[in-house]
């Protein structure tokens, strides 16, 4: 998507591009060709296709990212319970290296779940999500959660065709994780501090420190505390989901989609420049 609008040209590489033509000769007589494609050009192309598919069905796709064991599946279980009786209809795409365990936990609650097992791959990519979408009927759904592989590094680099990033940080992991994994936390549209019921027994996790570390990444995204197990803070999370769905569908009605924050900001900046 960045190949025609010039948004690949940043302050740091503009001089390199303007120095030579599109086709220039090297000293050895070889042909040099400017490309300026994203390294994940193919993945991003497929991601855009996935996003169109979601948009056609007006389904908001949310990418859940965190380290393993921070409570992504527990959050989804609690979300399903909290939405029972509401008019919101959801489905889940689960990413793990092995096992159907997580999908089964979701299916036990009568919610459609597709399990992607990545083998040794440390992240989901747009191709895997595309394959999963072949097995998932989107008609009548409102939100699809894509539970990424538990990993604070690799998933942040791959566009899946989703609309929003939600990053979980369980309070047992430590408040410095956003400073240690900046690529991931810079990309989040919402940060959830999970297992917050344990805060009373942890003397080394500071909510304000965690928030400061997120702000240091120039990320204005809200920070919510919740406990899926103890059913605390779920209302705020559900309200946020409803708000985002409304916002997304308003955009669709104007012929626009919603892109994860980073990309939108990048495009806005480059267009202005």
């Amino acid at each position: 998507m960045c190949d025609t609008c010039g948004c690949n040209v940043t302050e740091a590489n503009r001089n390199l591009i303007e120095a030579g033509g599109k086709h220039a000769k090297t000293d050895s007589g070889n042909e040099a060709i400017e490309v300026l494609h994203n390294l994940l050009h193919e993945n991003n192309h497929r991601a855009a296709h996935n996003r169109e598919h979601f948009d056609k069905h007006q389904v908001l796709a949310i990418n859940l990212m965190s380290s393993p064991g921070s409570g992504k599946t527990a959050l989804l279980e609690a979300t399903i319970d909290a939405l029972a009786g509401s008019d919101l209809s959801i489905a889940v795409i689960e990413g793990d290296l092995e096992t159907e365990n997580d999908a089964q936990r979701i299916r036990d609650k009568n919610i459609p779940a597709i399990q992607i097992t990545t083998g040794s791959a440390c992240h989901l990519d747009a191709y895997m999500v595309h394959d999963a979408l072949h097995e998932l009927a989107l008609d009548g759904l409102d939100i699809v959660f894509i539970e990424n592989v538990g990993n604070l590094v690799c998933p942040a680099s791959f566009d899946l065709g989703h609309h929003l990033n939600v990053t979980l940080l369980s309070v047992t992991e430590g408040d410095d994780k956003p400073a240690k994994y900046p690529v991931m936390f810079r990309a989040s549209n919402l940060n959830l501090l999970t297992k917050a019921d344990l805060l009373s027994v942890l003397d080394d996790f500071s909510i304000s420190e965690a928030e400061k570390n997120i702000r240091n990444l120039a990320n204005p995204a809200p920070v919510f505390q919740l406990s899926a197990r103890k059913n605390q803070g779920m209302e705020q999370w559900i309200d946020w989901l409803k708000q985002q769905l409304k916002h997304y569908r308003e955009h669709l009605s104007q012929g626009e989609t919603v892109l994860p924050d980073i990309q939108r900001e990048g495009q806005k900046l480059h267009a202005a420049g």
Partner: protein
Amino acid sequence: MHELAICQSIIEQVKNIAAENNAQAVTKIIVQIGPLSGVEAPLLQHAFPIASAGTIAKNAQLETQLLPIKVRCNLCGNENEAVINKLLCSACGAWQTSLLSGDEMLLSSIELETEDLEKEEEKSHV
């Protein structure tokens, strides 16, 4: 970890460009990486021989150019370089900044060995 997947994506793109230009070989691949892309240059270098083996780029040199992190302050307009986990304004200290560069992961350019060098030479003078 994911650098092999990224290398494979690079090789796919390079193969297409080489075919479009009727190249015999790819001699050099230049990529630009910003620290906030999540791509590690040394890991990319390690993965490259595996991804390029048996392809038209098997003898190509992979050059990784690291780009700096630069931000512009949304409040005071100052522009400065920043470190990866402190994207702050150096003038007023605000965190409300926009990234100018530093998240790039770009296939910048490639160098090809083409069959008829003289002919290409003539074309470029037209």
